[in-house]
């Protein structure tokens, strides 16, 4: 209840806020921040709980975006179907990555996920149906209830954020989370103690991938455009990993704090300074945090409270 009452309040707020007469830009920027909340939360399930560093969030995000585009272009599917399809593709890709990298840990796993990102980008660059290298313009369907499509997408992403956090929290507090943490500390010891390490790893890969895929689904509609380089951009990696680590990896609340802080800061820097500078800010913050405060903001807060 301590979790669910605030969660439902935030959900209602996220859905109702876009109905209010607030400046459109708030939702335009807020949508991106919420996307990073989902991405960082998803990254945390594999990276924070199980200790597997995924450098390939853009692969999952991108496959979600392209799945949505294919569904939209081929059968004019509504957004909900696009998101479901994207989550399915992301989950399948996660499962595939898990199976392919069974024996890999640490940097090998991380590099394999980078490889998958670039291979998917190359595949999409060469696939004419989804626009290939030049990209594809998309016409947004009319929107009901909300004043604009962006406002509607904000509400959808708010819902997905709450959903993703609820899933991450459930995993963390159940036996699944304990199993994943034992994977992180010592895979051999966990296996020897009867923890189903393989199944848990595949499960974490699939859930994390599905959430990232879902987060990518509305992006083409948000931009009214899709092209491979920006969809499979490694800056999504910095955002997801940075959000989780800066907030505090390993706890479900960490990525929320980190992603909201980072995302908001990025939006401010993009507007006031430049787009390049916002990536630099995240990179610098990421390095500062892994060096000086490895437990993230949550860890810092815990230290202050304990004193």
């Amino acid at each position, binding site marked *: 209840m301590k979790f669910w009452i605030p969660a439902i309040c935030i959900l209602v707020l996220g859905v109702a806020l876009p109905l209010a007469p607030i400046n459109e830009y708030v939702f335009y920027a807020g949508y991106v921040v919420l996307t990073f909340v989902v991405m960082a939360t998803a990254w945390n399930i594999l990276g924070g709980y199980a200790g597997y560093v995924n450098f390939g969030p853009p692969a999952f995000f991108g496959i979600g975006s392209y799945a949505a585009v294919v569904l939209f272009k081929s059968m004019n599917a509504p957004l909900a179907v696009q998101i479901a399809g994207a989550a399915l593709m992301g989950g399948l890709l996660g499962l595939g990555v898990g199976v392919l990298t069974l024996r890999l840990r*640490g*940097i090998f796993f*991380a590099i*394999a996920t980078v490889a998958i990102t*670039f291979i998917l980008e190359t595949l999409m660059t060469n696939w004419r149906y989804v626009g290939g290298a030049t990209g594809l313009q998309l016409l947004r369907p009319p929107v009901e209830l909300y004043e604009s499509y962006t406002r509607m997408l904000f509400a959808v992403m708010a819902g997905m954020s709450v959903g993703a956090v609820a899933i991450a929290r459930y995993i963390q507090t159940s036996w699944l989370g304990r199993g994943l943490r034992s994977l992180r500390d010592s895979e051999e010891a966990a296996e020897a103690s009867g923890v189903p390490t393989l199944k848990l790893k595949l499960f974490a890969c699939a859930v994390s991938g599905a959430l990232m895929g879902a987060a990518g689904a509305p992006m083409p509609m948000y931009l009214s455009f899709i092209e491979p380089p920006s969809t499979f951009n490694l800056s999504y990696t910095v955002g997801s990993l940075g959000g989780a680590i800066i907030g505090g990896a390993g706890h479900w609340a960490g990525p929320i704090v980190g992603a909201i802080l980072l995302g908001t800061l990025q939006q401010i820097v993009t507007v006031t300074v430049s787009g390049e500078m916002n990536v630099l800010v995240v990179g*610098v913050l990421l390095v500062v945090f892994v060096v000086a405060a*490895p437990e993230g903001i949550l860890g810092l807060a815990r230290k202050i409270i304990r004193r």
Partner: protein
Amino acid sequence: MFSLDLLLEALVFGVLLGCFYAAVSIGLSVSFGLLDVPNVAHPAIMVLGSYATWVLAARTGLDPLLAGVLIMPVFFVFGVLVYRFYYETFERRGSEAGVRGLAFFFGLAFIVEVGLILAFGVDQRSVEAAYIGRSFSFGDYRIPMRMIVAFAVALVLTFGLSIFLRSTFVGRAIKAVAQDEPALRLMGANPVRIKQWAFGIATGVSALAGAMLIIVSPVEPAMDRLYIGRTFCVVVLAGLGSMTGTLAAGLILGVVESVVLMQFGASWAPAVAFGLLLVVLGIRPQGLFGR
């Protein structure tokens, strides 16, 4: 369309390209292969070397290759400092160094890349020298002169480093630290100092590799992303820390990439290194000449 002539040309070009790939990977082969440092920032540091070469060559009119040699000591010191910092903050504390060490080098790569964009913009940069733009022909084949220069430097670099590791005191110490660090400690040697030299050498070599990169093709800041695939593919395929293996693996990648380029076109080329890397990781993670 498939022709023997075209295939032969692809092979020749692939061999040249392969040597170049071996040379750009040799620094990583030391830092990651021998020292187990998750140095994903290696390609970014190499591109930094390209820009340093470009600045020096453009300002002073020096030959880019000479400029590359001149910046090596600066990069050596930079490498020593980076390793010192990495050791003090991650390796020494031990716990969870995997996730944090990776995140550190990934963040470093991004800072270098974006720093270059802020300093020099996103435009492509290239250097000039007598051998750039000319080509060397025998029979019907034409081979760009700059590939031959890169090929020669690559061979010197790979064999030089290989001999250095095999027959000098410091080189053997570096191999020893890779083989059995606790034993080295028991012998009264300081593994951290040896590793910092090794990392410095790896970084210095990357600077020269960066100079070759800008000789072979124009360079832009985000180029390091592609080279994550190429360098890691070569190092993993070689088997961690094997110098001659690095040359062999570079040749394999160069030939495969060149054949794919000729047969399927440039749009498929980026996937070759990453695809090969995935195949190696999936089938034989210890590589061809794994230790």
